[in-house]
């Protein structure tokens, strides 16, 4: 059925309750397009959503999905994918979900290189809890819990990923609909952990990292001569704190995914009606 799947098939009949103008609308549209364009359909797709405004995506999309606890979406996605490698697994969540409470899992998911995609809806704020500093908030960004700004540098998620051995690092902007969908599509197509940090502005609680700001400052690596397979070049872009880049900054197509490395291909849901035929061998071992 995959050939005639349209991206709207991935849309549920639940109306989003995001604030009008929220970046998450565009982020979600791009994800649905990318899933449809890669030949997936809702019945073979599993979306794992974090907790936050971003995490509501699990409800607004239509697929097999779990909306779990705050910060633990990546381990859930890992479990789904390893248990049934035939499924398309996409994990999505916010910057707080992924880079604060869940940052430990982020590093290890990157290292593990399971063949799934991870879309972080980075609005540089805690949206759902109504406007506290997030790990990507600027040093001087005033919020209800940081009246004079966090006074600590924001994390650089792309650098974290690179240092953890990422095989696919990308960044996109929710309102550049075409490019965003393309980039997520590439993350899906990548044989390994496809990580996309999406600038997905919060129009209600972040008046600094706005649409205008990103529109004015983003540099698309496609418009430069950047070679995404060049690790050092990628490192230079990622560590360049003066600019915001869009596109696939780094890709290593040679690394084996976790499933390839461990020879995982089968759907583990399929088991015999009783103990496996040769299960008595297990008992024999204890003689």
């Amino acid at each position, binding site marked *: 059925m995959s050939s005639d799947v349209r991206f709207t098939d991935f849309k549920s009949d639940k109306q989003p309750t995001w604030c009008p103008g929220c970046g998450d609308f565009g982020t979600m549209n791009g994800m649905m397009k990318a899933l449809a364009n890669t030949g997936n359909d809702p019945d073979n797709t599993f979306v794992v959503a974090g907790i936050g405004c971003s995490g509501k995506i699990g409800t607004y999309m239509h697929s097999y999905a779990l909306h779990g606890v705050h910060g633990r979406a*990546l381990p859930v996605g890992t479990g789904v994918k390893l248990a049934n490698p035939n499924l398309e697994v996409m994990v999505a969540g916010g910057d707080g979900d992924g880079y604060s409470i869940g940052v*430990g899992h982020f590093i290890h998911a990157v290292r593990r290189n399971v063949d799934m995609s991870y879309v972080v809806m980075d609005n540089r704020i805690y949206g759902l809890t109504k406007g506290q500093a997030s790990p990507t908030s600027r040093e001087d960004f005033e919020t209800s819990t940081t009246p004079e700004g966090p006074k600590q540098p924001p994390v650089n998620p792309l650098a974290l990923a690179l240092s953890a051995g990422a095989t696919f690092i990308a960044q996109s902007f929710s309102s550049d609909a075409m490019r965003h969908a393309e980039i997520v599509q590439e993350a899906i197509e990548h044989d390994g952990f496809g990580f996309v940090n999406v600038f997905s502005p919060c129009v209600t609680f972040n008046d600094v990292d706005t649409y205008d700001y990103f529109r004015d400052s983003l540099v698309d690596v496609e418009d430069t001569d950047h070679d995404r397979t060049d690790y050092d070049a990628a490192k230079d872009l990622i560590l360049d704190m003066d600019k915001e880049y869009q596109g696939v900054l780094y890709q290593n197509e040679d690394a084996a995914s976790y499933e390839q490395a461990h020879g995982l291909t089968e759907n583990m*849901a399929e088991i015999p009606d009783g103990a496996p035929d040769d299960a008595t061998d297990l008992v024999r071992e204890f003689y």
Partner: protein
Amino acid sequence: MFDNAQKCRRSTFQKPFDLPLERVDNIMPADFNWAIGGEAGDGIDSTGKIFARALSRAGRHVFTSKDFASRIRGGYTAYKIRTSVDRVQSVVDRLDVLIALTPRTIDENRSELHDGSVIIYDGERTTMQNATIPDDVIGLDVPLKRLAEEAGGAIMRNVVALGAACAVADFPIENLDSALQKRFGSKGQKLVDNNKEAARAGRDYVQETYDHDFAYDLDTTDEDYVLINGDEAIGMGAIAAGCRFYAGYPITPATNVMEYLTGRIENYGGHVVQAEDELSAINMALGGARAGARAMTATSGPGIDLMTETFGLVATSETPLVICNVMRSGPSTGMPTKQEQGDINQMLYGGHGEIPRFVLAPTTIDDCFWKTVEAFNLAEKYQIPVYLTADLSMAVTEQTFAPDAFDMDDVEIDRGKVVDEESIDEWQNEKGQFKPHALTDDGVSPRALPGTTEGAHMTTGLEHDELGRRTEDTEMRVEQVDKRNRKVETAQEQEDWSPREFGDPESDTLVISWGSNEGAMVEAIDLLEEEAISIRFISVPYIFPRPDLSEEITSADDVLVVECNNTGQFADLLEHDALARVQRINKYNGVRYKADELAEEIKAALAASQEATQ
């Protein structure tokens, strides 16, 4: 050649030959108790296991226990074996032969040694120079290291000691050969042969140097036994039950479950992931289960603490998951290598809000296998998290069983209400949307595994409607809570939650315990019987749901509840169920109950209660 040994002897050595043989014979019990002790790193565990295997292959029953660091600080560790031709289910306070690699090993076990016990030690070992061999004990100085070197390497020192022990126990050395073959076979025949030679050197040395009949005679039988510990039984049960996805984070004493599965589950199409922490482990397992695999994680108290938030998610999203808690001494890091049954409250009540769950607590090592199978069936039939709890003493110690205790033909798999492409329409609403949390009479909803056509659905830790979507509708909230609890009621009615019964059903004295205390208690019944004290014993493998013992409790004169914790968490539950008081026998010093000790405790409790009523 005796220079060093002489030094040791000067102050301490008692010649074995001084002991009149009759005395030894008189105190010779039907079973034989053996131990090897030394420092962590001395290879105590693997040596102990070789001897246990040798005994088991010789058709003898074996029950082992391990002492890790203990009363005195430092790296003391010991492996103890109780063996008999009859079934043994407990350790006792008694040692017949002790291989002491350090002086401390002797100190630690002083109280268990008796007239005629034998200590095998290496008087040439520098650290043994100031060892004191107690007067009533037979000290056999055997140059373990030197003989090992002659046989091919000092590392075989412990095997020389095993050979010496064979001589003392009149145990044919050939039985050791097959255990050595199993242990070292994969490393080449040469190594096996060297070890066999080392064992013979130890045996010959004792036979030649000490011309003495030690009065121990380990009979062999033609029985075939398997030698297995609780963690291994759980791992084996998991594979048998179709568990294919395991995620875990190492923690004593649950790590063995993960280590057992690693390298084996792959042969059945499964996989083990070492997660970065327990938060991740349970979420991975949850993911595996949502994908449709039978999934499990195993941990101990500290890991359970970390998993608690997700535990609620598992229950709310109605995901079948088996969470194995191999209990150890708490709170906090507690005594990580010590026995305790302190987590009942944690497993029953842990987590915010009201979380339906099952808690299974196997009472023996073979029961660990069967309860694991049952846990997977219950999890899938009721789409609920199931705690499967063992404790340290059962998890890490080996025991012999007839192989048919693990008859794979008896393993039944029930996957519950899984729908397929044909049956899915019954569970869709008028818009064709699948209802993963459909309200049903028995509380159990259908399950569509990912990949099932037209089954796509979400679920969430938020309260949700039948479609799995968030709701704060007051009616739906109540309906979903009721539905989840209805599953528990259904299970209570439809499943068998019976306890296991032992002793005299007519007795006025009722002893109740849960988990691994069963073995010691069963043997204690025999000991008490010898003193004309009859006991009815109920061993409970189900914490929740659990059998209703109100009638048994209220009709008995004395009710004693035995458990390894301080407050009597299970006793609390029984009092709540029966609306009656029970007496508590608690142990929380980190060591499991021993049969003889438990018999004494029960006698004392009965005496105290008699006094109170007079």
